């Protein structure tokens, strides 16, 4: 995928995740873990997955949902699925 386009997607995703977990974007680094580090509710983490699936028309297998723990994980998933 075109890097510029993926960078745009990453910006969209960060904004969406920030809205869902109600944490400002500047606190949302790629590495920080939603539940462990930010104390985000596990349901919000699932809501992130649901939102990503809907927006980008990708399917996340149920077994992979617990692995989505940070923005980095979301980006990696999307990069793989959108290729």
């Amino acid at each position, binding site marked *: 995928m075109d890097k510029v386009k993926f960078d745009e997607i990453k910006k969209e995703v960060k904004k969406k995740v920030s809205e869902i977990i109600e944490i400002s974007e500047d606190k949302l680094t790629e590495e920080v873990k939603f539940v462990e580090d930010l104390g985000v*509710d*596990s*349901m*919000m983490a*699932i*809501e992130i997955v*649901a*939102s990503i699936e809907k927006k980008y028309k990708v399917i996340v297998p*149920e077994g992979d*949902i617990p692995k989505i723990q940070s923005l980095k994980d979301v980006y990696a998933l999307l990069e793989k699925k959108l290729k």
Partner: protein
Amino acid sequence: MNKKRVVITGIGPLASPGIGKDKFWQGLLQGKTGLKLEECFIGGELWEKFYLHKLENFDINKFGLDENSLDQMKVWKEGEEVTDLYFLIAALKLALDDSGLTVDPDDNTMSCIVTHENPGLEQYFNKIIDIAYDVLKNNKDISKKGFAEELHRRSIKSSFDLQTFMALFHVMKAFGIHGYSLYTNNACASGIYSIETASQIIKCGRNDVVVLVAADCPRIYKYLWFRDLNMYAKDGKMKPFAKDANGFVLGDGAVGIVLEDFEHARKRNAKIYAEYLGGGFSQEGWKVTVPMAGSDSYPKAIKEALQFSGIEKDEIDLACLHGASNLGIDRYEAKALTDVFGENPQKPLITTFKPYIGHNLGGSALLETAILLLCLDNNVILPVLNTKEVAPKTKIDIVKEKVNKKLRTVLKTCCAFAGFNAAAVFRKIDS
């Protein structure tokens, strides 16, 4: 406008607190959970230990059933273990006895709805393992075709019996029930779907009585499935909505419930536990084992139940939730409840019964409805066991001590695997 009303006139539970309505209710009041550490051996070796709400001392011969009917089932089953079927049949007998109704096997159009997620599955797995191991052990050079043929020959009858219509057949045959009958499976929410279906059968005038029955007797294979999903409580303690909720525990159980046309019940002076006012149903359509956070499917089902019942939300005295004791699912359920009733609602009071009886899977919604109806009948609210501190993010509170309180209208809700969300409203009949 359909003026028929549907009431519950028979309850026949069997689970770890006790067998039969009275012993079961007393067992619940005494907090008898039957929780034990179950050991599963295979080939003489210990495979796994896991906690289970086990029904002990179950003997199908003690229910006053027709021996010939049971014998016919044994002949078909060729000596195979039939615990799932026995649970269903026993529960139905208990419910019929409680209702005072009898079935004339030569002349009836009574309807029956049977629910079980997968009757005979545990026994089937055991059988396949035994056959496969025996074949491979004694035929080291067997070809794949030869193995398949031998496995097929020795298991085809059991495979046939996995078809769920066979469970319906055996239950109906045990009682001589001949009317319009169904097998249902909507995962853990099955019981509420069955109640609604039964209500529609009565309201359309097809039948005055519908008997419902649901059961499960889960063992090692179901335990392993949930264990691998990290949903099983290793310490055996179900703590619904707790901040340290760590999973559920399976439980044996079965329940029969008799639904009846109100006028039909009144004419024969039947004891009426409650009226079924209406239900709500919503299929989420996302994942199987994970509810869709952010979806409005579950609150929609609850609101629909209120709407079809023709009541306002503040008329609900007590709500019995699914209470899976899983952090994510509990949170999802609490959110649905607060979407309908507001955050930290003072009404309805909230409880859940799985810590008493375990998770009865496909039987759970009907069995927990039975407990809810007994609470309504006795004006007693059973507290949620084990939960010391409710997770603050749920924004609900739960009943933690037994409460004697006059109850009129109650709500049962369920959010099941595969996104089957359902809710049902029951009200005591005004005298």
